[in-house]
């Protein structure tokens, strides 16, 4: 099968790449675009390390074909903050709450957190846990990750947090 030309809009940047139709989005992000912040922990759709946001929804980039992402808006961990020298409030919260150990699940966790908070700015603990249930972490027992997301919700909308 011949390669296909696709256009990817990643973190606001447009890229044209020729890809084999069976290539996953995770592979193309990492290998073609050198956006290695997206991690591959299983390549089977079971660990969530490869989570990115596509058109406002989180997807496992190891289960998404690159051709499916043609002309869609994609946000990866590298594009979460306004610039590479700044941290997004969720990232800040992960640092402050010590929610990071080995860090291999972290990109995926943060992207899932972003997806959760975009759709539910003031989640309960149960909702946070449910929002993370597709992301495995082997280091932290999730405790500080849940705390970080709670902290991030407050950072992103201090007023709303007060009401809740």
């Amino acid at each position: 099968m011949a390669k296909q030309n696709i256009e990817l809009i990643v973190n606001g940047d447009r890229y044209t790449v020729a890809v084999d139709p069976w290539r996953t989005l995770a592979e193309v992000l990492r290998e073609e675009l050198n956006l290695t912040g997206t991690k591959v922990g299983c390549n089977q759709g079971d660990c969530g390390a490869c989570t990115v946001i596509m058109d406002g929804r989180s997807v496992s980039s190891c289960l998404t074909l690159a051709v499916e992402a043609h002309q869609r808006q994609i946000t990866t961990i590298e594009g979460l903050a306004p610039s590479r020298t700044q941290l997004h409030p969720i990232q800040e919260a992960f640092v402050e709450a010590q929610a990071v150990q080995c860090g291999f699940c972290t990109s995926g966790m943060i992207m899932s957190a972003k997806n959760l908070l975009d759709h539910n700015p003031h989640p309960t603990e149960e909702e946070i846990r449910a929002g993370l249930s597709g992301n495995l972490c082997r280091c932290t027992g999730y405790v500080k990750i849940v705390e970080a997301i709670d902290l991030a919700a407050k950072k992103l909308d201090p007023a709303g947090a007060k009401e809740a």
Partner: protein
Amino acid sequence: MKTNPKLIGQSVPRLDAPQKVTGQAIYTDDIKLPGMLYCKMLTSPLPHARIKRIDVSKARALPGVKDVIIGEDTPKVKYGNWRLVPESQDELPLAVDKVRFVGDEVAAVAALDPEIAEKAISLIEVEYEELPALYTVEDSIADGAPLIHEESKGNVSLVRKINYGDVDGSFASAHYVREDTFRVHAVQHAYMEPCASIAAPDEGGRVTLWTSTQTPYIVQCLLASTLGIPENHVRVMKVAVGGGFGGKMELRPWEFCCAFMALRTGRPVKFLWSRKEDLSFGRRRHGMTLYSKIAFAKDGKLIAKDFQVLLDGGAYNAMGPTATFLCGTFGNMAYRLPAYRYFGRHVYTNKPPASAMRGFGAPQAYFAMESQFSMAAEEMGFDPIDLRIINAMEEGDVIPEVATVSTCGFKESLEKVRELSGWDEKRKNRQPGHGLGISAYSFISGGVFNWFNTKYNFSAAEVRVYDDGTAHLFSMACDIGQGPDTVLRQILAADLGLSIDKVRLTAMDTAQTPKADLGSWGSRVTLMNGNAILEATKKIKEMLIPVLFAEFDLNQIQDLAFEDDHIFVKSNPKKRMSFAQAVYKALRGRRGEPLVAQGYYTPRNKGLVSPAFSFGAQVAEVTVDQDTGLVKVDKIYTAHDCGVPINKKAVEGQLEGAIQMGLGYTLSEQFVMKDGRTLNSTFLDYKVPTALDMPPSESVEVETYEPEGPFGAKEAGEGLAIPTAAAIGHAVYEATGYRCKDLPITPEKVLRGLGKLK
């Protein structure tokens, strides 16, 4: 208790976190080098077979293939972590003559891209003569069983015996004796980063390796010996490592193959293991059969123990010898035990090799001991916590043939967990289907026994200080997620009174960092590397102190303090100088010779096992659904003594992660094996607990000041992974009357135990 600098105990945010939350931290598979080739490996489809013929000609002819190697092409040097006992080194990077498990590596290919490499692998023809295979330790040690390694008679590769006191006499005169056999299963580390490595050829036949490892120095040495090149022709370099838990502490075949083919082709070679392969063939925690007989006197004092363990080692030794030794050691830790006999055997089977995994023989040994303590308490009419307190070790106790315990917060941990969990109250008002269980542990802070036979110190540090007020730490210590990159800088900054952001780090580079460090295992890094740093900072202080004495014309008896980036006279803080200024003056005084100091640590006069011991106790509260047999852990309570925590949140993080691993070990994780094949090779089927599975938990620290540890610290990494299984097991018994002696506790076993399932 000594007063520590104020930085000690502070939850300094991890210094590597900003890189990790932005996706900028570089893990091995993130690295790409010009001209890089991709390596794939061919593994054995059979559990036990003789290799009759290998034909690589078709693979070699495939366009894009740059190298193909089999065992016969390599120097065929056996390796293994136990260099002290060369006969124990039983592995070859690529099989020669025989394969011993499904997954044993047979050949490797380097090609222009991973697809070509994969294709080439499928073109390699191997003719096998299948041999009878062994899957259980009982079958392996049976008379007339086929031999997996010719040299190991009876398929036993290592025996460890301990024997002291009058064991048989004590059993004969005891008030209460019980014997049980426990079976525990294999589980996997399930680190989130799959194994990966990249080797690049360097000038003069040297090679540089980036690899997901927790033991860079061990990899350097063993890679050099298997390649047949000088040790220092191999450089192992820093990368971020996505977890290890004991699963990445040996030289692995792909590290050899990448390096070997990089040297042959003159091009960098990269390897990445898939999760499916990692779950199918990867290292795992030893399954064991543990027979234990214990005896108590009427007053509840433990008087004797006979402990016999068969470790299911799989096809190679890996870290099994250490597990065999330590299992015996853990059999008489935590409690006073006047008479003890241990007989441990490491047994080969035709399964993926077991190795180190968080706790190194302890989760298994304590599952047996702690389950028996709870059973004995019930039958003898003691409260289970009381029976433990009666027998608990205390400061100054001697573990025969092991060590003296210099700090011990064990009784306090037991008392505190009783209080924290509401033990007395809840046991009085027991609800049906509901139970509370207790378990305890003691663990080592690094090992003394030099199985790797290193000629260097166990840990080393180099500290350089500059007149811009900064310091630079060079250390081979290896951050696999547990946090030494932060904690070691914290120790350095605390001792020199610098702010943490003034301390830079070069870590885990075998060409630049002082020799040596044995790696991240055995909960050794904080204590051993911390001590090495403190020896180096002491030397730095000795270089700076004369500057202040000269400047302020100080009296001999005056003491100096290092704080807030300054050095000052304790009795007269106005006599002060910035750290930067002091370094500047010292530099002038030394006519330009930089201020550099090295420090080392090897435990001395500390017995054969460990320089310091942690202690703790855990209570699990569970609800068991009597119809489905489903166990729900409602809450976990922990009290533990890890000495002085250097970074409180980092210690909490260890505990929280340990509970997750303990929970998986007890309830959900297991391998389904058929004829030596692992059938569950995805995270869908191998069930690591998710955020929804985790029970809430509460903990308290019992602080002691360990004299052998830096600023009073001892281990906090692995001990906490020990108690959960027996605590849940006991709680399930209290809730249902079913006593689990074979992990994991599945709903089927609970129902069968209750007679609801045949």
